[in-house]
């Protein structure tokens, strides 16, 4: 099967390898080295999609990253990816792609009716049209817009591909491998600098692949190949193709997306799909080149209208003719270069040049080849709906205001060149305040903000000779500063044709009586008339015009649209372009897949998992785990068909009647040493610490400076100048930072050291009336009687040959002990506890039973210490010293904190003693009051009391002190529940605290 638009033996594709692919269900073939775009064009396919707003037919406009419309939905190895530019997607065997923005099909598109109703869809149409009636939004407007608009469909399946992140440091990062990138990289590499050279396309060389130039007696393409080959052999150089530097961030950090596998039918085993590079560069050289600008004329979005540079690239790189009867419309010499390539390959182009009588070497060559050139001529409008069929052309007056008689000439494509726009996105992202360069009608980088230098066409330099000279020099100069080497590199001879001045003409006037759409932004369907409306409606700032009209938004980021939009605004406003200014260029420069940004941090790798040394035992014994921060903790140990409620109830009950053991390794532990340790504790805790004897523990509460409770826990005096502090699992890291803050910054005179020992100790809480029997069995030689080891006592012991710390502290409200051993011995300790505890009916208990036990005892925890409560609210005011000062004390005098009706923790019991109360429910006085029903408080924690066998909750309640005995209602609109309740004391079980002291 021959391809009608493919030239014989022209281009850089591999003709020995044919590849078959499908587009919109139809089968085609191309060659290895094609892009999806070049392969489709070789087959004569120009219609690839529908436009965003008006659903007008869309073809190819560019040949690479500049493409505004050929965006497809890609199917590869049973996965699908939206927003793929056909001009960037390399062809592989079995590729499948579909058009977007068309429904039901690209050839018959219902949304195209928008095109005929376009009077209803001008600038700001979203804001104006769909505002009322309000009820129409959900039912009619939104579903319609969602179906008719949008660029692609994200897959809802789990992405099986792997994405990697890589961190890299280098001396010079060079963005773009065109003439300036290659020269500067080569010079810097020769000076021994560590260089990373990044090219977003598969092939290195940039414009050298398509320009008819000669460097050092070789073609530009061969010279580029030689340089790249040599760079690749150098150990100090990393050369990456398919790698787009898309963001320039603070302190010379740039991010690059490397497409590792997108050009293959399937990702290789152990390979990532994409790799995101975070590169910290000492210096950045931006050699990102330039993008050709369109000229604005009627129906300039018709398939077959494209950039002249793209037509040249399709021809020279892929051997593809974008048309056989091309019309070239130009305001500068670049259009002639494309025309010459057509002519050389047997296709006869016609050139329309807006200039009157330009002269240059290139134009002379075109003339000598016999190309038909019409000066002072413009395209007024393209004709044809799904493909260009002809063009209305006319002569234009010298002042570019008057059109001559309109003629129609046949053509099958219109190649446009409106001169060149430097790609300044990276420089602008770096913070460089760009400046307008009058000679080229475009912005170029100004004074560098970070360590960045822009070279070549990206800097507005379009002469190859000048580009090579400055780039070699800059590469040498910058690398020399870093490496101190000064290895001379000779700059090769350059032969290039001289070009003449371009014409500052950018927009063809509308002929009288015609209302052609003249597009500025092809991706977002923004036409000249839209900008005119926005300005007429009073929008002035270019940033506002952008948002109102969507000019330069989305993935285009103004690549092809920006300058013409500014030209128009400046013309209407009668200002110069630099006074209008350009909108902010934002990263990413091109769309980056979410997978690449997320990297490997997906699923269970989205955060670290911390496990206690006893974890394997829990697993073996049917523990059902729960996330506690990043820790995995047993929630309950499932027996038979038990559910959470039944299992946790059994475990809690067993603690109240016999004895249970709970893994408390996750509690934060901080080792505190030094002669001023007691003084530190006395300043950070609300209660007194100076007189705590050695061998005793004390419960303490810590505040933030604003008076809010930060954390609670026990601290034990191990020896004269040595304390062991415990924190809640959640606050462990914050408390350590808090202590370090005061020690390092506020009280550097205190001689104290703090260090986290959370992971050094494994902990087991042994709780219940029979816990002393278990402890005695564990430590037969110790006196663990109530006198030998009283409540809040501490001793050290030998647990079957293992050194152990024993604390008599209790969270469950029962007689209880906490035993700590070094982490490596954690599992040994646990098994010994289970072994000696068997005769006392010991059972392990999880976090659910732990919660039940503390809730019915009225012990506050994280759900009450929620960052909004002060000690009084938690009934902890007894621990607040009146005598000494401490962190946060002064805040407790604030009016709101001392109010008579201050909120306070209370107990809540449902009147029917049956209905469980959802956590987070609100407490109200009158269940039938009109909404919003005044909230008196909220349920902070709920359990099923195993002591009384009915539901019990804790609540933070306004004026809680005076509410005991009152009847209120619990309301949970989420669960659709209204429950009559009675307010009781938070100390529901053992209010006098006798058990812990027994």
């Amino acid at each position: 099967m021959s391809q009608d638009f493919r030239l014989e033996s022209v281009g850089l594709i591999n003709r020995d390898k044919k590849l078959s692919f499908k587009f919109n269900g139809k089968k085609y073939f191309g060659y290895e080295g094609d892009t999806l775009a070049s392969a489709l064009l070789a087959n004569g396919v120009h219609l690839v999609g529908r436009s965003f707003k008006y659903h007008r037919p869309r073809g190819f406009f560019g040949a690479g990253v500049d493409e505004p419309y050929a965006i497809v939905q890609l199917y590869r190895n049973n996965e699908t990816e939206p927003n793929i530019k056909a001009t960037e997607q390399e062809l592989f065997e079995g590729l499948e792609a579909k058009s977007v923005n068309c429904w039901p099909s690209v050839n018959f598109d219902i949304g195209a009716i928008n095109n005929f109703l376009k009077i209803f869809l001008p600038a700001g149409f979203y804001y104006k049209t769909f505002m009322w009636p309000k009820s129409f939004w959900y039912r009619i407007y939104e579903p319609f817009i969602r179906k008719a608009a949008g660029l692609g469909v994200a897959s809802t399946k789990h992405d099986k591909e792997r994405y990697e992140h890589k961190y890299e440091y280098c001396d010079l990062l060079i963005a773009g491998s065109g003439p300036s990138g290659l020269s500067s990289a080569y010079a810097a590499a020769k000076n021994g600098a560590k260089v990373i050279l990044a090219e977003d396309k598969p092939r290195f060389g940039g414009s050298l692949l398509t320009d008819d130039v000669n460097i050092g007696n070789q073609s530009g393409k061969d010279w580029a190949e030689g340089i790249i080959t040599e760079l690749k052999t150098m150990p100090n150089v990393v050369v990456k193709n398919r790698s787009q530097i898309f963001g320039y961030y603070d302190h010379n950090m740039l991010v690059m997306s490397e497409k590792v596998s997108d050009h293959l039918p399937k990702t290789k085993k152990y390979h990532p799909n994409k790799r995101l590079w975070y590169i910290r560069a000492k210096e950045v050289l931006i050699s990102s080149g330039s993008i050709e600008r369109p000229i604005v004329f009627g129906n300039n979005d018709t398939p077959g209208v494209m950039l002249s540079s793209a037509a040249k690239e399709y021809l020279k790189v892929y051997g593809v003719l974008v048309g056989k009867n091309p019309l070239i419309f130009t305001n500068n010499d670049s259009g002639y270069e494309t025309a010459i390539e057509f002519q050389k390959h047997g296709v006869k182009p016609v050139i329309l040049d807006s200039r009157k009588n330009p002269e240059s070497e290139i134009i002379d060559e075109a003339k000598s080849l016999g190309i038909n050139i019409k000066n002072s001529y413009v395209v007024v409008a393209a004709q044809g709906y799904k493909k260009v069929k002809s063009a209305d052309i006319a002569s234009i007056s010298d002042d570019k205001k008057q059109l001559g008689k309109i003629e129609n000439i046949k053509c099958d494509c219109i190649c446009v060149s409106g001169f060149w726009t430097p790609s300044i996105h990276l420089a602008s992202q770096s913070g460089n305040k760009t400046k307008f360069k009058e000679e080229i009608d475009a912005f170029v980088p100004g004074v560098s903000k970070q360590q960045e230098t822009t070279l070549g066409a990206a800097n507005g330099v379009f002469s190859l000779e000048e580009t090579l000279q400055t780039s070699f020099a800059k590469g040498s100069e910058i690398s020399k500063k870093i490496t101190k080497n000064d290895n001379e590199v000779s700059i090769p001879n350059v032969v290039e044709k001289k070009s003449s001045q371009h014409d500052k003409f950018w927009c063809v006037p509308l002929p009288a009586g015609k209302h052609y759409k003249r597009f500025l932004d092809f991706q977002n369907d923004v036409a000249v008339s839209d900008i005119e409306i926005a300005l007429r409606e009073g929008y002035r700032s270019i940033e506002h015009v952008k948002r109102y009209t969507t000019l330069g938004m989305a993935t285009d980021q103004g690549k092809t649209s920006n300058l013409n939009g500014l030209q128009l605004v400046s013309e209407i406003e009668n200002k110069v372009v630099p006074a209008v200014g350009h909108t902010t260029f934002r990263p990413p420069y091109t769309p980056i897949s979410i997978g690449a940004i997320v990297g490997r941090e997906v699923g269970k790798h989205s955060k670290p998992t911390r496990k206690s040394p006893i974890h394997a035992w829990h697993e073996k014994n049917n523990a059902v785990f729960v996330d506690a921060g990043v820790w995995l903790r047993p929630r309950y140990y499932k027996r038979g068909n038990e559910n959470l409620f039944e299992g946790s109830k059994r475990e809690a009950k067993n603690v109240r009647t016999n004895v249970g053991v709970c893994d408390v390794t996750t509690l934060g532990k901080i080792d505190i040493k030094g002669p001023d340790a007691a003084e530190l504790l006395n300043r950070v805790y609300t209660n007194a610490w100076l007189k705590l004897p050695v061998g005793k523990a004390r419960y303490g509460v810590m505040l933030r400076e604003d008076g809010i409770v930060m954390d609670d826990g026990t601290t034990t005096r191990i020896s004269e100048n040595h304390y062991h502090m415990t924190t809640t699992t959640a606050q462990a890291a914050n408390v350590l930072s808090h202590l370090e803050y005061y020690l390092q910054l506020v009280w550097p005179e205190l001689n104290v050291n703090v260090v986290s020992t959370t992971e050094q100790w494994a902990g087991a809480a042994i709780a219940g009336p029979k816990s002393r029997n278990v402890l005695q069995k564990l430590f037969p030689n110790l006196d663990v009687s109530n006198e030998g080891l009283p409540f809040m006592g501490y001793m050290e012991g030998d647990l079957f040959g293992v050194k152990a710390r024993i604390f008599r502290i209790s969270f469950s409200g029962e007689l209880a002990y906490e035993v700590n051993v070094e982490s490596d011995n954690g599992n040994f300790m646990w098994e010994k506890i289970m072994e000696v505890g068997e005769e006392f009916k010991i059972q392990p208990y999880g976090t659910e039973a732990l919660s039940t036990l503390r809730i019915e005892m009225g012990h506050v925890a994280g759900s009450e210490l929620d960052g909004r409560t002060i000690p009084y609210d938690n009934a902890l005011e007894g621990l607040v010293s009146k005598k000494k000062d401490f962190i946060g004390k002064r805040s407790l005098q604030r009016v709101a904190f001392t109010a008579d009706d201050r909120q306070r923790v209370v107990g809540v019991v449902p009147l029917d003693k049956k209905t469980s109360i959802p956590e987070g429910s609100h407490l109200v006085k009158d269940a039938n009051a009109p909404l919003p029903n005044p909230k008196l408080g909220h349920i902070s924690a709920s359990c099923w009391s195993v002591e009384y066998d009915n539901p019990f909750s804790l609540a933070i309640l306004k004026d809680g002190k005076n509410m005991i005995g009152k009847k209120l209602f619990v309301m949970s609109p989420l669960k659709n529940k209204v429950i009559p309740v009675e307010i009781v004391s938070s100390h529901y079980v053992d209010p006098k605290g006798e058990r812990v002291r027994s």
Partner: protein
Amino acid sequence: MLYIKCPHCGMRPQIEFSYGGDASVKRPELNKEISDQEWDDFVYNRKSLRGKHLELWQHISGCRQWIKVERDTATHEIFNTFKADEGVV
């Protein structure tokens, strides 16, 4: 991502640090009578400057030291870094 020179460890990426607020705020001494206004200024009132700002950072994933960083809040330029007991008052 910022690149911060820890005065103890050298140049390190921002992910190793945690931010700690305005470094020019001085905690009133303990046991000292202070007015409501003084206390509010210490706890709550911050200038939220645009421009050069002296701020606290802690090198949590490194040496765990609190350091002072002189940084431009608009441009993110870092002019200087100091140990806890050094630097501008």
